[in-house]
């Protein structure tokens, strides 16, 4: 069962400093980012100095310290994807949306991130969005994906591999 509140996430983990990363993971997944308030609460409940919570939250790529866009496009930049020109796709996205990796568009709709290898290398280049893997990406498919997300209110279905 997915925990919904900070209280539920901290349940059973109080005074256990080694649970810090697990707690941050759950908060990231539930709230989409780690707020300053969340960090203060974690510090008090887990018994970890606040500077240390801040340090851990800023060290690991999994944690965002600012809210992300409604749609987060994550580009795999692993070697196999790179050799298939994944960097060109990332450039295309940043130019098209006008943001650098890690930033949110001014209308709050899109964030662009990159990740160093998702482990699905045979299907590269890969772009993920909310857990959906879009594989064998091309510039045309990427443009279509962005437009579809922009226009649709409902969830986007995965693109089936073209035969």
């Amino acid at each position: 069962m997915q925990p919904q509140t900070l209280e539920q996430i901290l349940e059973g983990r109080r005074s256990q400093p080694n649970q810090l990363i697990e707690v941050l993971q759950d908060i990231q997944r539930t709230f989409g980012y780690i707020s300053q308030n969340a960090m203060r609460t974690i510090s008090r409940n887990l018994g970890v100095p606040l500077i240390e919570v801040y340090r851990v939250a800023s060290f690991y790529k999994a944690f965002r310290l600012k809210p992300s866009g409604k749609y987060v496009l994550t580009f795999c930049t692993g070697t196999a994807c790179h050799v298939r020109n994944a960097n060109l796709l990332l450039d295309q996205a940043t130019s098209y949306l006008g943001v650098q990796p890690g930033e949110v568009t001014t209308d709050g709709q899109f964030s662009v991130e990159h990740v160093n290898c998702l482990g699905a290398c045979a299907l590269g280049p890969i772009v993920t969005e909310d857990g959906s893997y879009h594989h064998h990406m091309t510039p045309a498919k990427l443009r279509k994906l962005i437009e579809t997300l922009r226009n649709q209110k409902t969830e986007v279905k995965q693109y089936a591999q073209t035969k």
Partner: protein
Amino acid sequence: MPKLNSARELEHLRERLRQQRQDITTTVMVCGGTGCQASNSRSVVDAIRAELTRQGLEQKVWLCVTGCHGFCEQGPVMVIEPGNIFYCHVSPEDAFEIVYQTVMKGELIERLLYTDPVSGKKCRTETEIPFYEAQDRQILSQNRMVDPCSIEDYIVAGGYTALTRVLNHNLTPDRIIKEIEESRLRGRGGGGFPTGRKWQECCEAPGDEKYVICNADEGDPGAYMDRCLLEGNPHLVLEGMMLGARTIGARKGYIYVRNEYPLAVKHSRTAVEQARELGLLGNNILGSSFSFDVDIARGGGAFVCGESTALMASVEGKVGEPRAKDVHTVVDGLYHKPTTLNNVETWANIPSIISNGSSWFASKGTKGSKGTKILALTGRIKNTGLVEVAMGMPIHEVVFNIGGGAVDGKLIKAVQIGGPSGGCLPVEKFNLPIDFDILAEAGSMVGSGGMVVMDEGSCMVDVAKYFLKFLQDESCGKCVPCRLGIDRMLEIITDITEGRGKLEQLDLLEELAETVSETALCGLGKTAPNPVLTTLRYFRQEYEAHINERRCPSGVCKALITYRIDPDKCTGCGVCLRGCVHGAITGEKNQQHVIDVHLCQKCGICRSECKFDAIQVVSENEVSRCSST
């Protein structure tokens, strides 16, 4: 299922489960690995299940969602027994036909069979597929038929026999360590350290509280062997850890899975819960005095956490900053206790060594590298995927026999082995075997097993730049040589790729590389210069072309190339104009289109969309043409 209180009860359970499945006439195994799931294999499973129910075949036909088969590009992948029939690119709409034709009538569906790209023939079975035929799938053998979320499947397939053997015969730690040492198993995560010796040192370390850890942080880009193993057969890894814990005297273990593998986390958790339920984890396992439990720890997205001391810091809830290893982790590891940390694949090898013996394992491979190795074969070849071969297989056999050779008629130029810590080997060195020591001598390394094949379309200077950027991104930043050294190496290489390079910078690059590798605090920094050093060693002419002629021979480095529309091929269709996000293309309909080089960012969109191959990449200085697309 009730808890098992002895090894005998486990054997009885195995018998019972096998009996239950006696009436099964056909087994349909659908790959449920991350790759095939991305291609919608879950819907295939649902469709097949629905069809089987419709035909009333649920009792006779066993539908199994398995772990990764390794041939990800052909997914969704399905194997049907009897007959070892291999279907690829299966879609939910094929369900009726598969059940009716193949399952009920035993007939093949031609269009779902795999076509060998080299011979053009259709392959009926897995063994007919060159990709599989040349492999020696030992560790991955169960991936094709075991449901990773079913401990019963693992037991039916013979799992946990090594554990029962150890407990039944009450094998001593010394006895087990001797077996592992004689097998000459070496770490599969990259270090290649003799596993037996590691266990011995940890066993001898003073202290009652010891730990075993499974390193599933697999950060090497281009490598996904551990993902497949953990997603596809977590019980195999778990059994290995149990054997390790029993040997060194650990009562607690952790599987550290990187954040980017949610399915591996899920399957590991399920496996642990199931093992606990049966009494294979917990107190007094199978009625013996051995108590052991496992927890899953998740990474936070840091490649550096693949380094053992950084990993342990992360398990402790801290930042993944490595510490000096003057005292080894087998003596002072997790929470300062003796800890045996091994890679996923290393653990996965243990049960078969205990069951089959050290000489069985040592009969494969070379003098210095025994057993089989799982490789992630990706890049510019026809057959990409996960392969398992005996150590000692020459690189060219892997690339050409298994990989099927180049795509699009290009020339293969190099293979990058061992991830960011490894190096690039040119085609001339493809006669070298997959062997820890021989590849290390050549400047590369087996590493975790990632092999990325590159063709003439890859610029080796750009490859070195790519790896330096990766390592700079992943460096923890604590020590000067890694933080500043990699930064300066990247600065020099960037100068070279942008046409500002000077020849004396190559000497500086080599000197800096030597300094970083000698003085860095941890393995990430120490091996960071490898991609630079190997590309300098084997592809110096490419560096020199960038410096002396301001030319990128492969047409990759943006500052040194220009995009140009070939007037002979351009039809004025306007596709490129519409696709250009920088507004750099102008032209009237059906008239010549032109690229404004000042606006062009060489992003490649126009090239990939042009159906007439009209967009050329030319060198700034020369008129020489590189073929497009």
